[in-house]
């Protein structure tokens, strides 16, 4: 288990409104989202443009990348993300993704992406039946994902905070995920290995913490990179989950 001991703040800069035209991130607000402000703030801290996108919006014109944030969309009283996927904005998100536009969903956003069938499998209740909030150790896998700015094999840590983060899929899907290099992040031990019986805190199949679609433009992960981006608790490693896609956008590759 990763150390969760308290750390003090280091660099904390005020968020500034950025005038750069590109890249421009749209952060979707569902009713019950509660990490959308964190995401906008993290992206602006790195220096990107980030705006909220209301769930009833049907157009994503002008955005270069879309973020589905964490939270409890519609309270998640039903299966997590099951109602949010029917929000008007999701039709636009699906069209955006189908056209090759980069989409990232963390935590509840990942759950919404699986419910919307933009990613395979589903997220079920944590194995221990408890909400889990802690820092976890993760290994970056050799994947086709366009979002991650870390070399395969890199061991990093990110916070998780979820009740339903237990990634589950059938054997055929798992085989496809592996064959197509769609597994982006795995929970692991501090040395990068995975423990016998699994390193996932939530019971996830094959220690999967994050996956992408075959094309690599849609990425879902349970951990929260936006929470460790602006240095509030001495950590900035989350930025690596946004910078690669931003560079692609700047080079004009993504769309």
């Amino acid at each position, binding site marked *: 288990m990763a150390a969760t001991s308290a750390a003090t703040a280091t660099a904390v800069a005020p968020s500034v409104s950025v005038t750069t035209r590109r890249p421009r991130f749209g952060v979707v607000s569902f009713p019950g989202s509660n990490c959308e402000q964190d995401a906008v703030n993290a992206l602006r801290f790195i220096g990107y443009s980030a705006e909220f996108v209301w769930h009833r919006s049907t157009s994503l014109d002008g955005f270069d990348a879309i973020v589905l944030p964490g939270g409890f969309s519609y309270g998640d009283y039903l299966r997590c993300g099951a109602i949010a996927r029917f929000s008007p904005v999701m039709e636009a998100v699906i069209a955006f993704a189908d056209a090759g536009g980069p989409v990232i969903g963390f935590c509840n956003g990942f759950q919404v992406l699986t419910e919307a069938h933009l990613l395979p499998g589903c997220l079920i209740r944590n194995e221990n039946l408890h909400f889990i*909030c802690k820092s976890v150790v993760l290994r970056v896998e050799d994947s086709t994902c366009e979002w991650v700015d870390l070399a395969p094999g890199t061991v990093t840590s990110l916070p998780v905070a979820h009740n339903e983060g237990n990634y589950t899929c059938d054997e055929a899907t798992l085989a496809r995920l592996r064959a197509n290099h769609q597994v982006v992040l795995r929970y692991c031990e501090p040395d990068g290995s995975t423990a016998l019986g699994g390193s996932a805190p939530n019971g996830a199949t094959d220690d999967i913490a994050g996956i992408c679609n075959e094309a690599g433009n849609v990425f879902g992960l349970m951990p929260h990179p936006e929470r460790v981006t602006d240095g*509030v608790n001495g950590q900035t490693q989350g930025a690596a989950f946004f910078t690669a896609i931003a560079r692609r956008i700047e080079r004009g590759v993504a769309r």
Partner: protein
Amino acid sequence: MTENAHATVTPSGIEIDLSQVPAPVAAAIDTLDAERAPQIAVDLGLTLDEYETVKATLGGREASLTELYVYSLMWSEHCSYKHSKRQLRRFPSEGPDVMQGPGENAGVIRVGDGWAVAFKMESHNHPSAIEPFQGAATGVGGIVRDIFTMGARPIASLDSLRFGMLDKARQRYLFEGSVEGIGSYGNCLGIPTVGGEVYFDEAYEGNCLINAMCVGVMREEDLTRAVGSGPGNPVVLLGSTTGRDGIGGASTLASQEFDEAAENKRPAVQVGDPFTEKLLIEVCLELLQRGGFVALGDLGAAGLTSSASEMASRGGVGIDLDVRKVPAREDGMRPFEVMVSESQERMLGVVTPENLDDVMATCERWGVRCAVIGSITDTGRFVVHDGDLPAGQDIVADMPAALLADAAPVYDPAFRRPAYLDEVAEYNPYHLLLESTVVDLSAVLLTMLASPNVCSRRWIWEQYDHQVQSGTVVLPGADAAVVRVGLPGRGAVTNRGIALASDCNGRYCYLDPYVGAQIALAEASRNVSCVGARPAAITDCLNFGNPEKPEVFYMFKEAVRGLSDACKVMGVPVVSGNVSLYNESFSQPIHPTPVVGMVGIIDSLDEVCTASFKQAGDTIILVGETHDELGGSEYLKHVHDVTAGTIPRLDLGLEMDVQSTVRDAVRMHLLSSAHDCSDGGLAVALAESCISGHLGCEVALDDGLEPVASLFSETQSRILVSLSDDKVEEFEKLVGKHAVPWSVLGTVGGERIGIEGKVDVGLGEAAHIFDVTLEDLVNQVD
């Protein structure tokens, strides 16, 4: 009883100036008959004298059924504080930083650069003792509403919990359910639960304590108060529908003792809907931001009744409501049911006619129900209509709004010093000190680390989202949580912070209520000082037994006196708070538990310190000194099952000097770590700094005390610090300047916790025991 034509003194001692009572609005009202009315009044918890006062406020006539419900709730202990009010006036509530003291939904203080924080702590003990998940969840919901009502965005929660020992299945059920309830509600709202405390003691077996504290941040100019004004202004109800759930929750549950019939009160526990609350937060803050409300108040205990009458009485206006315009959850609700329902997630707002469309449209956009249910009037009366009745006969309650709030009876309960206080004070643990020369003190330390009151709280806080909003600087498990001040959603992030801690050792208060309550303040203050924050203000939650028992009231009175004296000396105002009485089961009161919730101010987040040892070779120093003070200690309780003795002395002057020494040292970047010595004494504090820092230590304690006292005595005003060698000289100068006692204990490093001649424990073993104890206790099988 009338003394002259214009004034009357009621049987319960309230003076009412009849010339000031606004005239009734209703031409006629369907009152109860003179025989039944007093009976129903008594059934609803009023005394006959109190009912006579009710009649006096109504101009001598009998009350209607709706009125009787309204009065009985407003004058219940929970809403009126009738037994505690006079004592609470002792608390200092003013200070240069205070923007809003007691009397509003929450207290508010300035924290610098135009920023302010609103905070309050509240109990949800009685509902949680019946249904822990929903009881605790709705406790969080209620306190969160109190905060955003003031115009502040909630940015942190803390929870102060007390249960019986976990070897009993019922206690595990209550503990697990409460933690899950707090988590499920707070996590869904996206408000980080960053701290708090939990104690386990047989004294709480019949009545667990669930005290929830919430803290919100705002710009100073955003402060909003629940003061109704502007006759003609529409009154709107936002949020959930109103049902029969929670009818009389606060009055029937929180104003009586528990007995065998307690389970039957389960229907009086409300059910939480955090999703609706989350939407309410967003819609209310958005509207407040652009001045959409004249006044805003939440519906808590006594529902619409208390919210509407307080809003009217604070503003010196009247209010007219129609119960049939209140969106109902079920058919056939009677007017009194609508008025007293404690359905959760509802807010009452006053808006101007010009703003009404914007309020309705904004609610529609967020998917929040909003209905106009009445209006502000200039009559000074709280008038309830039943729109189903024919015009002219539709008024079911017509009460003077100000008197409903202000004429509530106030009592000076009898008090008597409990005889047991002398017995327990005579206990002398000296014979245990002699035994200590033969026992294995390493084993005793491991036993102490496995005390449910000492071990890691990881099992709890891992179930709380403590990082959402990305503002948590110091995570749970530290002396105090530190949260960044700002409103990231509005593009405002600062380098300022607030430190938050809650504290109360109920065992100390049971043995000595005056000093015990002072120690609660001293420890909370010490905790925020350890992270580098200046103690600014507190909220409190005073949990006691039945105030009608003289022994219980003595303890209440002494605890309030102790806490207020300490607040005055330390210059810390009490800006909000809550009293929870009748915490008794089968006539056994809980330990007196006056919980202190402290907010400290941090001017720069670059100057923050934590408890864990940081680097091998650092020098370990104790600021303060240890005395032979094992009375009331965790050692006595956990190792010898004794709750007795004289509790540690508290010298407030020394306490303040120790704290300011450490705060200065943090600001000067001299310290690697700072940790409060409290439960379990110096040995436990050392072990905790080692375990959290993954570093051992080698120390010697040359205090001349018997080993057990040296290790586990809970002497106050002690802070354990570590610092690198090159900073020791400057630190020595600083301590000299503050003239506080101090001593070098040893150095950080190695794989063992070594205390010369006393303790030698492997760090891994200590860490494992400390880490898994709580989880093991929860998962044990009978």
